C-alpha cells in the first residue's frame, strides 16, 4: 500500500516493526546504519511515502531529522516523517520535531 523507509539501529526491533508494517501490506525498506539511510534518500527519496526514524539517541538539534528534511525537499515530493523513540524526550523535543513537520511516537 505505502512505501516506507525505516531507520533503526536496533536490528531486532527493526525486524519486528518491519514485520508489523508488512502485515498491513506496506513495502518496507529497513536500514540500521545512517549511511544506508542517506543512500536510500539520495537515490529514491521521492518514491517513499513515509520515512520512520529512530531518534532515541538524538539530542535537541535533531541532526538526523534536519538531514532527512534537506534530502526530501530536494527530491520534490516529500514523504511524511515519523520519529520513534524508546526514551522519553520531553516536551521540547516533541515541539522541535513537530516544528520540522514530523511526528513523534514513543515505543516503550
Amino acid at each position, binding site marked *: *500500500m*505505502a512505501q*516506507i523507509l525505516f531507520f533503526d539501529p536496533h536490528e531486532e*526491533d527493526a525486524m*519486528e*516493526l518491519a514485520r*508489523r*508494517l508488512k502485515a*498491513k501490506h*506496506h513495502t518496507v525498506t529497513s536500514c540500521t546504519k545512517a549511511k544506508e539511510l542517506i543512500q536510500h534518500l539520495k537515490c529514491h527519496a521521492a518514491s517513499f*511515502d*513515509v520515512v*520512520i526514524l529512530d531518534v532515541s539517541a538524538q539530542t535537541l538539534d535533531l541532526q538526523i531529522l534536519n538531514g532527512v*528534511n534537506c534530502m*526530501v*525537499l530536494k527530491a*520534490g515530493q*516529500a514523504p*511524511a516523517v*515519523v520519529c*520513534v523513540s524508546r526514551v522519553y524526550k520531553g516536551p521540547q523535543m516533541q515541539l522541535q520535531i*513537530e*516544528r*520540522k*513537520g*514530523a*511526528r513523534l*511516537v*514513543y*515505543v*516503550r
Partner: protein
Amino acid sequence: MCDRFGSVVETVDLVLAEAHGLAVSGPHFKVVHRFREPGSNCLPGEEIAWVLLVFRSRECVLGLPLSLRILFDYLARNRRLPQSAAQIAAGLHFDAFSLRHGANARSGAKLTRRFSHSVIKEYVKRLRRALKVALEEVGLKLDPDSVLRSEPTVSNEVRYRLKASVDWIHL
C-alpha cells in the same frame, strides 16, 4: 500482552491519511472576517482581517497586505473553478464583498483596492511568496505553486485556482 509497536503502526496510518487529505484537498486555511452586522455572515461591508494557515495544532498568520487579503478571500470563495487574471480582475470589480470591503468599520480609511489584469499576475507571485513562508513556518512540506495553482489552457492563457480547504470565522 504489551503491543510495543501498535502506536507506531497507528501513526503511520495517520500520516498516510494526512498525506492523502492534503493531496485531495490541499492545506487548510482560516479566513477571519471582522465588523459583521449582527445576525449575518460574509456580507459586503465586512473586513478580511487575517488569513491563517492551519496544520496539525499550529496556526500561522499569512503576512498579507490588504490587496492580497482581498485577492485570497476571492480565490477562496471561488476555488472550485480556475480563473484567468482577467477573469479574476473582472470578478473583483463586480464582487460586492470586495467593492464594499471594510465599509462596516466606518473608519474613514480606504479599505478597498483596484485590481487590473497585470496586477493580478504580480499579486499571485506575492501570494505564493507569503504561502511559502507560512508553509515553512508550520512545517508543511508543500510547494506553494501546488496550493495556488496555475492551470494551462489550450492557448497561452493561464488560469489560477486555490487548492485548499477554507473556513471562514466571523468576529
